[in-house]
């Protein structure tokens, strides 16, 4: 393989990915009895408003201190906190519903390093039959108004309704984050 060659194209996970990707339960990033455990759940909808049972979500997040368990995050004074790897994966059920148990991440540095800060957020990949490549979105939190208002990624989305699709609604002990592939409620997706 020559240097500078193009990358391998993405292809859909198809309808039978459970076989290879969901043999273990990765939906709990922390133990249920973790003192700061939160539930993030929602439903995946297609362009006809039908639920999508053959979808899968993956989460990638910093810990509660805003530290990513990865060598690229080598900032001093922020050791990994709770032993969580920060990775989660959950398949939708027959009702298109998914549910994760995790902790709310801390703020992390913004574009270009430590000058600006990003509001607490979770990075999300969505896979499904009919998606030739993953969709990327983010979960922000409705009880972080101040941090959200200063977040550079949220600020890059002009339409306030579109921006609001990234903000999970707080309810008792958890947050609701629905994913809409199309339509007037379409979730904002990113070109990573």
């Amino acid at each position, binding site marked *: 393989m020559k240097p500078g060659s193009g990358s391998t194209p993405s292809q859909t996970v198809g309808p039978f990915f459970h076989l*290879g990707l969901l043999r273990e339960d990765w939906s709990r990033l922390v133990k249920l009895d973790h003192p700061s455990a939160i539930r993030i759940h929602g439903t995946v909808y297609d362009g006809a408003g039908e639920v999508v049972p053959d979808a899968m979500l993956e989460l990638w997040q910093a810990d509660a201190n805003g530290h990513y368990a990865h060598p690229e995050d080598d900032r001093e004074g922020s050791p990994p906190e709770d032993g969580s790897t920060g990775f989660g994966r959950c398949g939708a059920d027959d009702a298109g519903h998914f549910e994760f148990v995790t902790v709310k991440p801390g703020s992390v540095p913004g574009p270009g390093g430590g000058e600006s800060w990003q509001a607490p957020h979770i990075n999300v990949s969505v896979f499904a039959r009919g998606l030739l490549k993953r*969709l990327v979105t983010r979960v922000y939190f409705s009880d972080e108004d101040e941090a959200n208002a200063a977040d550079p*990624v949220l600020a890059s989305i002009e339409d306030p309704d579109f921006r609001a699709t990234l903000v999970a609604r707080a309810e008792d002990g958890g947050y609701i984050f629905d994913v809409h*592939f199309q339509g007037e409620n379409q979730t904002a997706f990113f070109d990573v």
Partner: protein
Amino acid sequence: MREERISLSQSGGYRRDSESQPPYLYPEYESTRLRAPGRPLVILPHTLSELTGPVYGHEKVGTLDHDLTRQHVGEPLGERIIVTGRVLDGDGRPVRNSLIEAWQANAAGRYAHHGDRHPAPLDPNFTGAGRCLTDSEGRYRFVTVKPGAYPWGNHDNAWRPAHIHFSLFGPAFATRLVTQMYFPGDPLFEHDPIFQSVSDPKARQRLVSRFDLSATEPEWALGYSFDIVLRGCNATPVENHG
């Protein structure tokens, strides 16, 4: 590998290689019509969130997880094959210690999945799922059986070319890739909208494995080579003194 560390956050992060990738909407692949996003994507700068990603530990991968022919009491039916290759970044550097997950249909073209209604036989000795970690040269190796082609409901007389699904993480959230590996010379290529959704013929060819006599083991199994190229970095490597 400290010497390979790259000052990613000082740079533009990972290169976008959209020319090699399929679109979201490819109407010939029916399911994209209601699932492709309608609104334009929001360009995301590569921050620490995108430059980091899940790290999978060696201890979690079993020594036989790469061998799909040894997961049951007996051996699966079909043509035993070896699939091997390297995982590289777009600059030809090996992607080391990185998790690869794979899944596939059996030799008759049937997945061991309750949703698969194709009336071909299940094989009690074949589940069709495996995983492994790349080694220090980015190399991986699976032992399996050649999957069969199978019909699907996309259009009249639609058949998927034989393929193995591969899922890779690479070093960062930005490098996540799920793809499919095909076999050389498959007559179904020209009829398959999933394969054809990649418009660049050179990129499409990167989805096709190569018969490899040097990976073939005498009296035992044919070998196929399949290199997987993840996105490259915009940065040039620098010494890391941290």
